[in-house]
């Protein structure tokens, strides 16, 4: 009986939230006398699909490269050789302390041109990875620091080699701690990739800008753009929850 009423309460709440939000947008649109019309978007479906795929490709490629950069930077911060350690710390601080837009311009037009990186897709992935890598480095560093050092002492005591200690102890302990944050970062990568439109990579945002220049339906185009990003990030957060359940056996006393 109690279960039934809480379920009912939940449904009513969800319906209420939807009514409030839709109502708010509706009234806003009425106030500016705008009638939504999504029909013109149908004609651009092929280009939108291309853009959608490009966004996913850029995000996935950046995920892998940034995981690599982030791991290296996290470990390098702890390096005994001070130059390496300072370099890693400096990288993390500067990247986290400046806007992605500035970094895209700086790396693409100055560094990229100077060193002959003229493939904009490669440049895009590298720049985005450099940016996200700094955040991932912090996630990994925090995760490593939160592991009780005695776990490593234990591994030593039972006679594990350093390689096996990493594979059987450090990695699973680290994953259990940072997986939620990492997948959250992947959602950020997806959203941040929209800024790559400024170097004319034909991903979703760039395509939407081009469509807007063509059909002048800015509201509908960007509304739909937001919806597409949300579909991607929401999928990621659903996957996160599943993975969390899989990795979360310790520290969770229930």
């Amino acid at each position, binding site marked *: 009986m109690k279960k039934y009423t809480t379920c009912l309460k939940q449904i009513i709440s969800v319906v209420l939230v939807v009514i409030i939000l839709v109502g708010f947008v509706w009234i806003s649109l009425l106030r500016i006398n705008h009638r939504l019309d999504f029909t013109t978007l149908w004609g651009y479906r092929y280009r939108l699909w291309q853009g959608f795929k490009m966004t996913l490709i850029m995000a996935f490629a950046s995920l892998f490269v940034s995981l690599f950069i982030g791991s290296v930077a996290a470990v390098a911060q702890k390096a005994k050789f001070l130059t390496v350690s300072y370099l890693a710390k400096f990288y993390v601080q500067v990247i986290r302390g400046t806007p992605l837009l500035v970094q895209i311009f700086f790396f693409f037009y100055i560094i990229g041109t100077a060193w002959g990186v003229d493939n904009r897709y490669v440049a895009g992935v590298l720049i985005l990875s450099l940016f996200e890598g700094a955040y991932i480095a912090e996630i990994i560093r925090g995760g490593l620091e939160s592991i*009780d050092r005695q776990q490593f002492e234990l591994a030593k005591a039972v006679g594990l080699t350093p390689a096996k200690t990493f594979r059987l102890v450090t990695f699973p302990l680290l994953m259990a701690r940072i997986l939620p944050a990492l997948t959250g970062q992947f959602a950020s990568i997806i959203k941040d990739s929209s800024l790559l439109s400024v170097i004319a990579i034909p991903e979703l945002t760039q395509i939407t800008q081009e469509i807007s220049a063509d059909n002048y339906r800015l509201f509908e185009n960007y509304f739909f753009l937001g919806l597409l990003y949300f579909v991607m990030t929401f999928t990621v957060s659903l996957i996160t929850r599943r993975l969390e359940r899989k990795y979360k056996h*310790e520290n969770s006393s229930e």
Partner: protein
Amino acid sequence: MKIVLNKICKSFAGKSVLKNVCYEDDFKALAIIGPSGAGKSTLLRIIGGLLPPTSGELYLDGVKINFTEKELLSYRRTIGFVFQTKGLFEHLTALENVMLPLIHSLQLEKTEAEERAKQLFARFGLEREGYKYPHQLSGGQQQRIQIARAVAMKPKLLLLDEPTSALDPELTAEVLDMLGELQAEGLKTIIVTHEMGFAKRACEKVIFVAGGTIVESGDSAQIFTAPQTKALQAFLNKVLEWRP
């Protein structure tokens, strides 16, 4: 087992923790007692090959232990080590904790490792805890599983660093009972402990460490009934003061 500690010194970042520790004896069960901060854990970790001394030599049964990573790796596989608390891998179940070193350090087949682990669990009444994670186990169970993990590797020497100091009296008893049983079977042990009763009963040799050196050592019968040094007398008075 014959042990020789020859002028062992250890300092951390210039701070001297062990000073010229010398000891030589033949023991079955050796207790290390002394006030906290004396350097007992540090000494035990050196004997276990977990920490290289700053200088000095260690011999077990006449064999010199070389403190190079490569030699320590195989040395550690012959020594069991039980930690004071949190001595289990927190991401593994109790059974997996025991099986992991059997498979990955001793290269046993998985089935063989599982069989050996399950036998030990059955013997020590731990069957029902096999599939639990460390946070689901009581402190006493965790310590017994640590001991089971060490014993499963058939070590030539078992080292224990205050294995009961974080436990309630009845849990202390269950851990010490298990240990006593293993000692009776001939397992050689060195235990750092505050349980004077256990040190007296179950260990025939005692080392008293204070201020980073061995102040007094000898047969436990002698040490507890006729302590020679002022420091040991004072220490024993203090720890026994509140006992009935």
